[in-house]
């Protein structure tokens, strides 16, 4: 006798109550913690994607780069009248500047002055290792006259308009020359001056405003507040200047749109599910009392899942809530089966009948569903792990609630399912043509054969666009703004790896030499931006130091610097000694790219594994041409978050298909442990048929398979096992009843399975209406798969009913 069969009703009830009490205490703790910390809804799409790379430091840096890019916003004011654009632009600047006083302000101008200040202070500590282009050339030529002339220009003339390096540290202004070159490269355009562009074949004046968010742009609360702030600003400007148009660019707009459509999905699916299920249950039970157990178990299960996951992860992803809403359809099954079994027992005047078969069936059903959901947790995606834990914990808690409260709430519940029984009887009658194990075997083999035949032709889609619902209007606007305003790709980079800093700079230099020979890769006047634009290589710094010797410490004459300082009465802080002291004092990028740096992406990451340097790619670069140039350069590669995510999703999809087979085998072993082999094979045939047929149908509908279709198949498996386990247990119970000479049939218990299937179809089927492709895929697969499960359960019942009647 197996373990499951040996557990008594009393044991079920006792254990389930104790575990429920323990989990309720856990729930109370989780609720307290959540109230204290506040509810955080996560709309971060990055957590849906697998890790960008196997290298943890690269992942961290890429997250940093993406986070930095996701905080950028471009607001463009446009109109045919330039004066109007200028006036509206002034008002926008005024509004944003005045908003700075508000501590809750989220939008600021992208301002590089702090960055340049920090950079200049760092350069000033290494004044003998950096030279501007002109000064370097003159130092190499040892042209004292021209060097003196250049120094004069830097002090009195055009070269001295902005002093980033104090004159006492850089009297000749040669380091300042270098710093101004860098300023030009990295400073965002603070000039919001209007300019003419072409828009749909007509001239248009635009004024772009480069803004930044003060917080993580992918958190729901920040998105809402920032959107509101931007909208308020635009409304104020439109009030004064109704004719101006606004164009926007930034990740926040896509994230907010995705969150809004997810929110709409949640509302649609949750309300639709609940409404449909409540109406269905009311139709069958016609009693508010009968709704208590399903509603309480759903609310308890979903609440436990929500608070537990929130406490465990620190937040709940919006996708978890969308999928979690479909949990309703599974949880309600437990109440349904409980009522049906007990009502059936009451009708047969077996009020004190042992409920062990019910509990066994419920437990097996729970186990198989949890195995199905648990497979999601090995997917490697954080968000899917959260869905798995949310679903499994919700199911377990709901199950325990049904077990604990069922005995009290089932009293005097009546089932009005005459109509449903007629439908079931009718379908069972139709099934008579196939009511033999042999025909079931033929059916399953046929479907498996069709599946095998079509397997090689199945299309797959691992596009990360499945994770978001792309608003085409936003995409078009983004592209339009990008064509007007130069900026960098937020999710594609050139990676340069090496062991030593010089190696990195050498590889970048080689890359730039190759790129300089090619035309048409980058838009006009743009190029890759890397550490070489901010810092010189160690070798170049050494060279500059040597060149500076002629300027500061010549062997046989007064130095150019000393003479210049004397003639112009400049403060001289013993530069000769300072030059000597600075020997080997190189400025390396890791001194600048620290964890505190927020205003520039982390272009340089050092770890025990080596150094990774990122180069930013201008938007509208010909990526294919760029990739071709990168091939063959050792240590240099192209990285795209989209490509990386696609590969990750492909890998996960392939792994998931293998895990599905594993889940099938695991469930098979559990069934074989509890039932005999023949019966187990009958039970496994139904979900196996459902899985294969679903894949065949999706292929016939020209739906390319994604990870989310495969994930849904796990649930098809779990739900299918629910139905067949109940068929198996209820038909076993009926055998006992037959011995007690009662007159019941599959039509007595099968309505519970039908109701269970319909509630699941209502909740999962509604997911197929979601605008998010991933959720839509999930819902469609479950709609098809679970329908086939129901048909399969009917088939199985028809087979065993025939066997049952033979036995009487």
């Amino acid at each position, binding site marked *: 006798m197996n373990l499951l069969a040996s557990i008594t009703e009393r044991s079920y009830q006792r254990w389930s109550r104790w575990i429920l009490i323990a989990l309720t205490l856990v729930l109370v703790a989780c609720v307290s913690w959540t109230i204290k910390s506040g509810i955080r809804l996560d709309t971060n799409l990055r957590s849906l994607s697998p890790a960008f790379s196997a290298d943890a430091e690269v992942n961290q840096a890429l997250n940093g780069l993406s986070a930095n890019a996701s905080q950028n916003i471009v607001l463009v004011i446009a109109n045919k009248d330039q004066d109007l654009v200028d006036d509206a632009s002034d008002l926008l600047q005024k509004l944003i500047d005045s908003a700075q006083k508000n501590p809750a302000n989220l939008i600021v101008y992208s301002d590089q002055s702090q960055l340049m200040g920090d950079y200049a202070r760092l350069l000033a500590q290494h004044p003998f290792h950096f030279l501007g282009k002109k000064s370097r050339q003159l130092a190499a030529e040892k042209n004292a006259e021209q060097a003196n002339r250049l120094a004069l220009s830097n002090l009195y003339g*055009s070269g001295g308009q902005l002093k980033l390096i104090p004159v006492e540290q850089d009297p000749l202004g040669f380091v300042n020359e270098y710093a101004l070159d860098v*300023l030009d490269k990295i400073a965002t355009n603070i000039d919001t001056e209007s300019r003419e562009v072409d828009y749909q074949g007509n001239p248009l004046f635009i004024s772009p405003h480069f803004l930044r968010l003060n917080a993580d742009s992918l958190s729901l609360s920040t998105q809402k507040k920032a959107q509101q702030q931007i909208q308020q600003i635009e409304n104020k400007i439109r009030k004064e200047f109704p004719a101006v148009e606004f164009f926007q660019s930034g990740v926040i707009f896509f994230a907010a749109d995705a969150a809004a459509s997810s929110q709409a999905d949640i509302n649609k699916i949750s309300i639709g599910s609940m409404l449909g299920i409540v109406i269905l249950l009311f139709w069958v039970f016609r009693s508010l009392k009968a709704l208590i157990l399903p509603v309480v178990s759903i609310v308890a299960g979903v609440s436990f899942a929500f608070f537990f996951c929130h406490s465990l992860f620190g937040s709940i992803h919006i996708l978890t809530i969308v999928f979690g809403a479909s949990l309703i359809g599974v949880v309600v099954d437990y109440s349904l089966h409980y009522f049906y079994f007990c009502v059936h027992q009451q009708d047969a005047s077996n009020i004190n009948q042992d409920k062990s078969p019910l509990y066994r069936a419920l437990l097996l059903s729970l186990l198989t569903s949890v195995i199905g959901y648990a497979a999601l947790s090995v997917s490697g995606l954080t968000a899917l792990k959260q869905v798995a834990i949310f679903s499994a914990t919700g199911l377990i808690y709901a199950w325990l609630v049904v077990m604990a409260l069922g005995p009290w709430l089932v009293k005097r519940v009546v089932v009005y399912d005459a109509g449903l029984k007629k439908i079931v009887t009718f379908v069972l009658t139709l099934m008579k043509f196939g009511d033999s194990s042999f025909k079931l075997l033929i059916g399953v083999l046929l479907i498996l054969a069709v599946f095998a035949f079509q397997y090689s032709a199945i299309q797959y889609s691992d596009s990360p666009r499945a994770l978001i619902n792309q608003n085409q209007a936003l995409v078009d606007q983004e592209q339009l703004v990008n064509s007007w305003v130069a900026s960098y790709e937020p999710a594609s980079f050139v990676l340069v790896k090496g062991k030593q800093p010089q190696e990195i700079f050498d590889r970048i230099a080689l890359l730039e030499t190759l790129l300089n020979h090619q035309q048409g890769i980058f838009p006009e006047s743009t190029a890759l931006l890397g550490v070489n634009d901010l810092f010189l290589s160690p070798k170049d710094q050494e060279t500059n130091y040597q060149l500076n010797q002629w300027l500061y410490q010549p062997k046989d004459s007064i130095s150019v610097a000393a003479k210049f300082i004397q003639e112009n009465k400049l*403060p001289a802080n013993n530069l000769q000694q300072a030059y000597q002291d600075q020997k080997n004092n190189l400025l390396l990028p890791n001194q600048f790219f620290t964890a505190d740096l927020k205003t520039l992406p982390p272009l340089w990451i050092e770890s025990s594994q080596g150094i990774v340097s990122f180069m930013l790619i201008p938007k509208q670069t010909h990526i294919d041409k760029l990739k071709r140039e990168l091939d063959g350069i050792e240590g240099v590669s192209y990285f795209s978050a989209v490509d990386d995510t696609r590969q990750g999703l492909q890998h996960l999809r392939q792994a998931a298909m293998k895990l599905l087979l594993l889940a099938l085998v695991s469930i098979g072993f559990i069934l074989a442990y509890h039932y005999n082999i023949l019966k187990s094979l009958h039970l496994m045939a139904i979900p196996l048929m459902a899985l294969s047929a679903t894949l065949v149908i999706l292929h016939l509908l020209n739906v390319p398979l994604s990870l989310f279709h495969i994930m849904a198949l796990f649930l098809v498996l779990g739900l299918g096992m629910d139905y067949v386990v109940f068929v198996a247990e209820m038909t076993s119970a009926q055998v006992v009843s037959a011995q007690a000479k009662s007159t019941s049939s599959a039509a007595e218990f099968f309505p519970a399975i039908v109701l269970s299937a319909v509630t699941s179809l209502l909740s999962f089927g509604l997911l197929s209406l979601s605008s998010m492709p991933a959720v839509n895929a999930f819902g469609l697969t479950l709609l098809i798969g679970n329908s086939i499960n129901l048909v399969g359960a009917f088939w199985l019942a028809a087979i065993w009913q025939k066997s049952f009647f033979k036995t009487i």
Partner: protein
Amino acid sequence: MPNLFSNFIKPQNSLYNSFYLCNSLCPLPPSGGGLGRGGRFLCALMLTFSSNLLAQNQLKNFLPESCYQTGEFKQEKTLPSIEQPLVAQGRFAFSCDKGLVWRTQTPLDETTVYRMDGKIWLISEDAQAQELKSKVHRQMGKLLNQLMGGNQRFLEKMFSIRFADGGVELIPKQSRMKKFLQVIDIAKNEQEVVITMRQADQQTMTISVSNIQNPASLDEQVCREATQTPALVCQKLL
């Protein structure tokens, strides 16, 4: 009688100031013989309008009147670490539709051409021309051209204007500009115009413009005579 015009007057928001002044001028209720509320409001409105006009007219007094100007300049740059100011001298020529030629003669010979279209050329004493494309130069060129051209609309847009001690202060409105430039003082007398730019890093640049001539037009010949530069320089401007 309070001095209405020695206070801080912002051309845009002086209605409140004017109402306060009208109130203080005529505090008694209508029965006491003074202006009623409506009267005081009308008074404020008229004062605002006239003070705005007055402010604009005052600003004009400090700005160049002619489209074409030539003259000499003396530039004194004061750096916090240097006791004595750095002095440069030279000549200039300006055309309100073309731009500015700024020729430094001492202590170095260097000419910068700031064109109205934003292009900037640096021409050395051996007539080698190099285009300057940096943002710093572009910003400075734009400011110089607008100041020299007396572009009141630009100045009112970019600066808060304050009259004090016989001169005018231009305070940048944009916080980003304030990080580099704190204030521009303009003082004028019969002989010269003195423009002082105080920068955020305690650097001060004072430009004294003198011997100002207003030719009827600025062609290449006039430009070359005024600036004493080779032909290339004025060609770059014109």
